[in-house]
């Protein structure tokens, strides 16, 4: 069974155009080697899209598809495949059933982390000469460490929308012997065949950062140990000359000339988009690993292909928790600056170069739906297509992002309980999805302010490498506290639907108000004392059972009555830097308390423990009130 949800919100870029052309060529000249209904459907959608864009319309198309992959296996092997010991690498005979035809091969478990869960990622290697939709290998990611099931797909969707060189990525329902196993993500095997399919030729040089040495950071320190830091995947030889030359060039080129260097040696968009994607999804697990480089002899340029996005969209590793809790933890960070991750001169010089930094900002603005970028076009394209918008416009704008997430939630959530094998344990799916939406809601306003809005002193909120080093060395064994008082004010109109209360200097959102009713325009103030144990508490509640944050909300305009739903957040960046009281046993038991007229009152509170967001509804506030809030577990 196949379900298709179409979103008319994504465009096609030059590279996608090249892909389409290649696909059309392939389908005409070798349709048998690329038999694929979905491909034909995609072509149809894209042709329709061209019809729309020629007319100057901005309709865009992409689709979320949930296809079904049917496998046949010996029933004992099918059980063993998922239930055997995590690090066993045995393979088993399998047949992929595709339109009644059986394509034979062997199936094995892949991945490292996900092996430790019953729902494992698997790889099907088809027998010599066999192909499934043009692929010799079928890689199915279990998504077992991301209980939202969305992080990887969303990131690949953004990457593909921006026109980056990327594999085909599709959701699949996996059935084995007609029994539903679970949702998996098919990610096309990244090899030279993929680059050939994308029009970059298969005779180029293909490198992957070594996942175990953490030194694929292009730094001068590591440019002479390339074999340790990089795996050359194709051609399979030990000649690293091209890569060495590239990295030396990156390190030797001054920042002011870096735009020329990048234009000469790189597909510039692939670098800009890489930084943009990592900024938006807050991916710090990269720049020294988790990316590929391909040098296309056809174009004479390098392209970057990002990889591995499980620690993204708020999820973050912990510096001190023991494995695996350093990865599987409750930390959540929407507030990291745009630039994060390991140092890397390609990243640093791109951001420091004026032209390239502007390109970065423009691309962010495009993905935020603030300003639209147009594709650069060739002579032929200019004749027929005018002002073709770049793909991915408004991709991260909350309305677009959240409708995409909701659509996925509707499909995945329906059959999630029918999955045969569980992944990692954690908060329910609904909480996971809500955390993604809250990430988008909070990070969108943060990045928008940091990157585009000036401070009250008319200076930039953020510039690349605008980093204040800590005054004293950070002790990684001790809890770190940086108490702040964040004061925000907002002018609220009766017609406003929602208001973000944002600290102006740090560009830090501290609360969100959904306006239910307001009798007149008003000035609302929210003040937050962070990383501080509340002193005044309701009777019977110990300070160690409370979040170490205090909020004060009031209205500065006389004779105002405001009714709002309110969101407040708290800090849980890592086990060393958080606001969780020592005696809090279960964050789900936290409630907001409000002090009004010198009396504490418990508020009906809903909490997203992943996103660390507390919500309360129907809060009434008059101009004579100063409301003090705390959050405690009883």
């Amino acid at each position, binding site marked *: 069974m196949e379900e298709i949800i179409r979103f008319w919100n994504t465009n096609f870029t030059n590279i996608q155009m090249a892909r389409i052309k290649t696909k059309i060529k392939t389908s005409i000249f070798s349709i048998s080697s690329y038999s694929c209904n979905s491909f034909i459907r995609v072509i149809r959608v894209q042709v329709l899209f061209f019809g729309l864009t020629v007319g100057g319309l901005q309709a865009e198309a992409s689709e979320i598809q949930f296809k079904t992959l049917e496998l046949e296996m010996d029933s*004992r*092997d099918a*059980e*063993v495949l998922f*239930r*055997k*010991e*995590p*690090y*066993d*690498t*045995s*393979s*088993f005979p399998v047949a992929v059933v595709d339109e009644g035809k059986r394509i034979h091969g062997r199936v094995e478990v892949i991945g*490292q982390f996900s092996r*430790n*869960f*019953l729902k494992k990622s698997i790889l099907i290697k088809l027998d010599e000469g066999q192909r499934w939709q043009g692929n010799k290998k079928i890689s199915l990611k279990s998504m077992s460490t991301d209980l939202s099931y969305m992080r990887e797909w969303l990131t690949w969707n953004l990457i593909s929308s921006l026109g980056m060189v990327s594999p085909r990525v599709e959701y699949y329902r996996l059935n084995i012997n007609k029994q539903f196993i679970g949702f998996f993500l098919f990610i096309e095997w990244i090899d030279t065949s993929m680059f050939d399919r994308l029009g970059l030729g298969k005779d180029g040089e293909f490198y992957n950062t070594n996942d*175990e040495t*953490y030194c694929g950071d292009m730094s001068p320190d590591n440019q002479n140990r390339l074999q340790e830091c990089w795996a050359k995947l194709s051609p399979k030889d030990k000649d690293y000359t091209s890569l060495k030359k590239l990295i030396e060039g990156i390190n030797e080129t001054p920042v002011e000339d870096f735009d020329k260097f990048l234009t000469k040696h790189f597909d510039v968009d692939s670098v800009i988009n890489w930084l943009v994607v990592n900024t938006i999804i807050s991916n*710090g*697990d990269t720049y*020294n*690993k988790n990316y590929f480089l391909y040098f296309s002899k056809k174009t004479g340029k390098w392209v970057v292909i990002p990889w591995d996005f499980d620690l993204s969209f708020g999820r973050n*590793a*912990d*510096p*001190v928790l*023991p*494995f*695996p809790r*350093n*990865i599987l933890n409750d930390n959540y*960070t929407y507030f*990291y*600056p745009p630039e*994060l*991750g*390991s*140092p890397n001169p390609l990243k640093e010089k791109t951001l420091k170069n004026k032209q390239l930094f502007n390109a970065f900002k423009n691309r962010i603005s495009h993905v935020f739906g603030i300003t639209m970028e147009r594709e650069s076009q060739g002579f032929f394209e200019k004749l027929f297509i005018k002002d073709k918008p770049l793909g991915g416009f408004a991709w991260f704008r909350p309305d677009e992002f959240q409708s995409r997430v909701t659509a996925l939630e509707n499909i995945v959530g329906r059959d999630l309980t029918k999955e045969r094998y569980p992944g*990692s344990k954690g908060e329910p799916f609904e909480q996971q999805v809500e955390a993604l939406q809250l990430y988008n809601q909070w990070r969108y306003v943060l990045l928008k302010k940091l990157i585009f809005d000036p401070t009250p002193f008319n200076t930039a909120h953020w510039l690349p490498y605008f*980093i204040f080093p*800590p005054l004293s060395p*950070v002790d*990684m064994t001790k809890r*770190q506290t940086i108490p702040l008082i964040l004061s925000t004010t907002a002018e609220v109109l009766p017609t406003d639907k929602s208001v973000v209360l944002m600290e102006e200097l740090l560009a830090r959102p501290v609360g969100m108000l959904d306006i239910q009713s307001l009798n007149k325009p008003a000035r609302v103030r929210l003040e937050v004392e962070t990383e501080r144990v509340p002193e005044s508490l309701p009777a019977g509640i110990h300070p160690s059972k409370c979040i170490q944050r205090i909020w004060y909300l009031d209205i500065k305009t006389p004779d105002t009555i405001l009714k709002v739903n309110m969101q407040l957040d708290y800090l849980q*960046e*890592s086990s060393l830097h958080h606001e969780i009281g020592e005696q809090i046993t279960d964050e789900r038991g936290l409630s907001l308390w409000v002090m009004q007229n010198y009396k504490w009152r418990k508020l009906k509170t809903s909490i997203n423990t992943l996103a660390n967001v507390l919500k309360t509804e129907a809060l009434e506030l008059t101009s004579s009130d100063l409301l003090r809030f705390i959050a405690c577990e009883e």
Partner: protein
Amino acid sequence: MNKNLISHRDAEAQRKTYLFIILSVSVPLWLIIFYSNVYASAWMQTEGDSLIATGTSYSIADSFWKRDGKLAQYSTRHKQGVYYLYGEYGYSYYYNIFASTGWTYSDNGTSTDSGVDDVKIGIRGRLNLFRNGRTWEIAAILPTRKWYLSDYRPGQGKYGLEAGIFYRFRPNPYENPFAEYPHSIWGGGLGTTLRSGGVGGEVWGYGNWQKNLFSPLWKIEIKLSALSSFAGAETGSVDIYGPNDSFHYDQISSDISLSYSLSRTTGINLSYKQDLWGRNINKNETVHAGIYTTWKK
């Protein structure tokens, strides 16, 4: 600070992940029971994986237990040196094959004997389809020559058939994913050896206890093993010259061994074995040193 945190996180995560993988995938030699040059294992190799182990042991016996369990001194020290070679291969997820042989030198103080030892070829399978550490084995023992000094191993040089089951009480890896092995793990095995010529037919068993020492790369194992013959039940004769394989024999031994993982695939092992009690059998002391390595096809 964010960047610092993330960089630190990377390095730390790498170290911890690497260590975890070492612990999870390495096949410790100490799972392989060194008993009288016979290997038995509760561990199944993954399909296509191979293991080769080699090492040497040296045993001495200054006394023997008579049929009544009383200790009698030899007039001369009995000595035996063994160099062994062992290999196993993951034929499929469900079956492993293994083979072993060795070169043995024996000296009872008055005469010596040496040569290529019995060859053992066997098959190992899973008692539990999904879990490792629960295996059965069947092996054929093929003699290479006749041995004249077999007081260390009754039945040496005879055709034989061996069968056993082996168990290791490991936690379910999915109940608490990523959990390191608990501080100690218990295991055990039970089996029988049948031999031609009415000599060396035995039932045997062992129980062992294993624990990490110093760091997860080091392991210590303590083992108590026992065997009892069910062949050679003749009566009469005297036992002043040492064990006589025409008669029933029993033995209880203890082992202590120390293993160290040199890498993800290679480890070394040192052990000391002391016979604690017996009837009609030598009182041996044995030291052993071995090395193993594994590789994928």
